[in-house]
């Protein structure tokens, strides 16, 4: 099993998960995740050579619907629930480093 999770790894994972954690959250998560991972690492005790993984309990594959046009959600209602919208689109802050 891997080494115990470090504070630097917690900060890295928080960036991957898009969570702007506070200092005290990083602190407590480092110790809590370490302790939880110690428990869940129990799964490594089982010999699973030649055992295929289960991603999903149902053997359904390639579920397709008929190629028929159906109504979708009304755009105005959907946009009305957004924090910000403009011209029929979701409005967000700038994405790249261009001038606003």
């Amino acid at each position, binding site marked *: 099993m*891997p080494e115990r999770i470090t504070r630097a790894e917690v900060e890295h994972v928080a960036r*991957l998960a898009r969570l702007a954690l506070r200092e005290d959250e990083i602190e407590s998560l480092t110790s809590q995740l370490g302790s939880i991972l110690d428990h869940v690492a*129990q*799964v490594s005790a*089982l010999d*699973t050579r030649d055992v295929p993984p289960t991603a999903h309990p149902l053997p*359904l594959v390639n579920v397709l619907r008929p190629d028929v046009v159906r109504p979708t959600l009304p755009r105005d209602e959907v946009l009305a*629930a957004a924090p910000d919208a403009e011209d029929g689109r979701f409005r967000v802050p700038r994405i790249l*480093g261009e001038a606003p």
Partner: protein
Amino acid sequence: MTAVEIAADVRAGRRSARDVLEQHLAAIDARESEIHAFNLVLADEARAAADAIDASDDKGPLAGVPIAIKDNMCTRGIPTTCSSRILEGWKPPYDATVVQRLHEAGGVIVGKTNLDEFAMGSSTENSAFGPTRNPHDPTRVPGGSSGGSSAAVAAGFAPVALGSETGGSVRQPASLCGVVGVKPTYGLVSRYGLVAFASSLDQIGPLGTDVRDCALLLEIVGGHDVLDSTSIPAAVPPLLDGLDDSVAGLGIGVIEEMTDRDGVEPAVRDAVRAAAAALEAAGAHVAPVSVPSSEYGISAYYLIAPAEASSNLARYDGVRYGLRVDGDDVAAMNARTRDAGFGDEVKRRIMLGTYALSAGYYDAYYGQAQRVRTLIIRDFERAYQQFDVLLAPTSPTVAFEIGAKTNDPWAMYLCDVCTVPVNLTGHAAISVPYGTGDFGLPVGVQVLAPPLGEPVMFRVARAIEERAPRAG
């Protein structure tokens, strides 16, 4: 009154749906401020629905039955919060399939019930809107995450409710609140409009005061839905027909690893043994059975469920719905919104899941958990070659005090130790009240069944219910 009795009376014109509703709204008025089962009580909408049923000639199989809905199922134009700040105030533009089916059947939705935020928890203490309390002892938790739905049924706010399960979130609170709770076979109930937590595990299930009401509700909400590609392409097998048939001749295995494990209270173990003895006296063949890999269920679950959750909850990014906290660019806005909007347990699981999926750890954690999942499925399949159904405790303990486990995440996770294996296998299970344990609090016994084994599972559950000691 049960849902079956209410529907029969309303259809026959012996009682009006409005009268039934007012009685339940009065029960809510009397005790909701103490219990906090609901995030939102829909009194006006429910009155309009009840009046429409009374005026209708075609009243439906759930005519006038008040129903409480867990607040992670979408209701058109009505706030759906998942008990999270990140969705506070959001009004879905559509109904979940289960909600639509309840309306069509004549059901009357009385409110949206509290839950652990995004259904992550076993006590309903992780709600942004405060905990729900157990109607049997308001100093104790109702279990979770469907604690609001369970408490609503136990307190008489509604005869039946819908909850959802990812790792036991219907059965465990049902056990702690002294009601019946069902986790149907994966794919039997449409999840269209159920806010996703862990998609290979999530399933909607009924709660009620008795087994028959849960069977009725499952017959109505279950069955294929084209809007859910993971929905089993079949109808629900008949559950009410044959419910009272004898259990004589059935093979029933008592799962040793769950019944005898450390941490199971003696009174809980005794309840499982007593239920097994009662079934044996009714003519069933009862024997112990070993499902060795189920021991690893809780560890596999707390890798798989957080991994899937970290992916599903990526959608809460401050763009399309709910909360936004501004930032200089999109990435900063995303990260600040998510830190402000999610509670501690949700962040813990997103972090755990993101870590388990990250480069270098994927195979040791997530990949290994998926292979253990296969071993657990194989062990249960072996057990079902010998037995029709299996018995086990639902919760290792009776309801615990509010605050008792909030500082120890792993202790809280162990509440699910007897329930998560069924979510990993995708099979069916039901929790039935069986007498009382410590402090006179309700105890639940679990009946487990193979995929689509609901008819025999409900029949055995009904036999246990008939023979159960009356709770105090």
